[in-house]
């Protein structure tokens, strides 16, 4: 029987490896999640947790000759694992778009902003240059770039970081995508500009009804924008849940550690608790909980067996043996 409702994004046991002559890096090691349109999922993790790789694989943007991908990956009803390069390029920028971390380097330095927006529209909708230019102007106004008309003819180096990131968002939204992927879009920006960009993204997401997957290492950013948060560690989701619940009562020791290592108002004077150690090397994938070597609550079983995802309540789950013993 066919399901009546298929989610916008359906990911089952997604695995991504980078294979080269010298080493194999297991960047993503079995991820499952669904995302509906109108929904914002925030993927939280430190550098090297595989979050950007996971995000890029949602439009198969990782370097094609080195990447090995397996599992189920469906976006808007289309299977991305078996899709051809041509099908993928039709999908990219039209159904799925991405905003990158560094607005300076992610834009072509020798092309005008207007042209960089218009070429996406022309590619996917085949309209005339004049019409595309008009759409580009509307988009710059949509992302609230002041004196948009002049900016159409500006080069990226003539704009500030915040404006460039707005232009990047305009490019991503050019063909009204159903799914927007954001790879730490505010990390390279000043704090005041960060919040403006976040508010803009939230507003646009509501207006356009997109599904959004937002990758960040910043808990504050996640709390600001997400409906749900997934915490990623060593290529796996180790905890997932609605934003407020997950922030209030984290289940996994790693999440607890992350929240403990964040500065809140009213904490002045008290000592900040940090997580000791560093994330594991993903070249050698071992059986067992990847976080166990750094975990203060680790038991012998943690080192021998990779914990299964345990659901504690609808929408909340975590990969930790402590949950099994608690219930």
């Amino acid at each position, binding site marked *: 029987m066919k399901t009546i409702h298929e989610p916008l994004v359906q990911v089952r046991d997604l695995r991504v490896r980078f294979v080269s002559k010298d080493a194999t890096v297991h960047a993503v090691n079995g991820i499952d999640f669904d995302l509906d349109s109108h929904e914002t999922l925030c993927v939280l993790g430190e550098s090297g947790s595989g979050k950007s790789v996971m995000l890029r694989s949602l439009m198969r*943007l990782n370097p094609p000759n080195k990447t090995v991908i397996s599992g189920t990956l469906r976006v808007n009803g289309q299977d991305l694992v078996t899709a051809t390069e041509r099908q993928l*390029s039709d999908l990219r*920028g039209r159904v799925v778009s991405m905003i990158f971390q560094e607005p300076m380097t992610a834009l*072509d*330095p020798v092309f005008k902003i207007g042209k960089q927006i218009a070429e996406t529209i022309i590619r996917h909708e085949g309209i005339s240059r004049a019409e595309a230019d008009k759409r580009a102007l509307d988009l710059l106004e949509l992302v609230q770039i002041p004196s948009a008309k002049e900016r159409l003819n500006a080069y990226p180096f003539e704009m500030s970081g915040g404006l460039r990131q707005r232009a990047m968002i305009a490019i991503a939204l050019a063909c009204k995508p159903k799914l927007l992927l954001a790879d730490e879009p505010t990390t390279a920006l000043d704090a005041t500009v960060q919040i403006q960009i976040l508010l803009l993204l939230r507003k646009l997401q509501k207006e356009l009804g997109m599904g959004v997957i937002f990758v960040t290492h910043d808990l504050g950013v996640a709390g600001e924008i997400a409906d749900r948060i997934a915490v990623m560690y060593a290529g796996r989701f180790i905890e997932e849940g609605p934003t407020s619940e997950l922030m209030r009562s984290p289940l996994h020791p790693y999440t607890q550690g992350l929240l403990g290592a964040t500065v809140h108002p009213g904490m002045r004077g008290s000592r900040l608790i940090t997580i000791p150690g560093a994330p594991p090397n993903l070249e050698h994938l071992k059986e067992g909980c990847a976080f166990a070597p750094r975990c203060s609550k680790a038991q012998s079983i943690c080192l021998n067996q990779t914990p299964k995802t345990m659901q504690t309540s609808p929408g909340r789950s975590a990969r930790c043996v402590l949950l099994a013993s608690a219930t």
Partner: protein
Amino acid sequence: MIFYLLRRILYTIPIALGVSLICFMLVHIAPGDPINAIAPPDAPLDVVAQLKHEYGLDKPLPVQFSIWLIHVAQGDLGHSLVTGRSVWEELKDAIGNTLRLSLVAATIGFFLGSVFGATAAAFRGTWIDRTLVALAVTGVSLPHYWLGMVLVVIFAVLLNILPAMGAGPGGMAWIWDWEHMQFLILPAVTLSAIPMGIITRTVRGIVVEVLNQDFVTTLRGKGLLKSHIFTHVLKNVAPSASAVMGLQLGYLMGGSILVETVFSWPGTGLLLNNAIFQRDIPMLQGTILVLAMLFVSLNLIVDLIQTTLDPRIKRS
């Protein structure tokens, strides 16, 4: 922009002065005397002294240089000590021939270099890349007078399908027909080997660098097709590549002495070669000055092209 141009044109004056002075001094440091080239070896001493006086070679060097300079400022490059012809008359034809040779060689070298370089970058790390890079290194490393002689042996002597030397029938008059162009093929191919190698390596380097930049991922993420991404890469590569090409073209014009000598191509290189061996000072000075000016103006043109290609470079 106008001021920038004016400033750059004014810069050429000290460059011209410096080049002329150094060249003048070098000629006089080298052993040998221009008179030896004109007068028979057994000429009596008073005849030699008479000749020296007539050509002004008995005056102190600074005075000689100043006299030459004053004449040049008035547009007079003087007369050859050997042939007695006006230096400018000889140069005019030679420059035409050198330009013809170096432009054809540059076209071959730059075209092959760009294609090889871009291909190597697109297939970087594979055997295609390694083969093309090896070819480039070979092109740069081969001494081109040797390559010229080998080509002559193969195509002129053994196969007898191309002429070995000269610039074709009809003396100096050049026509773009097969009868003349067949003389151009061997020297042009010989001369194109070095720029081919250098442009291959340069273009490969720049293209690899551009392909590694984040914006290429953005372009893929927008769903652009390969051909479209290629135009983006091309526009990013063009400014730096054209700068290197401009310099290479300059070297080709000034540096074809050996190749022109091997093929007896009647250009500035051959002229220089003869002038050096005969200590023909006015000829030497005039040729070097004109070549230096060509090089400087070529650099200016390259800079201007770069400005139009890359919006990040502003001239004001």
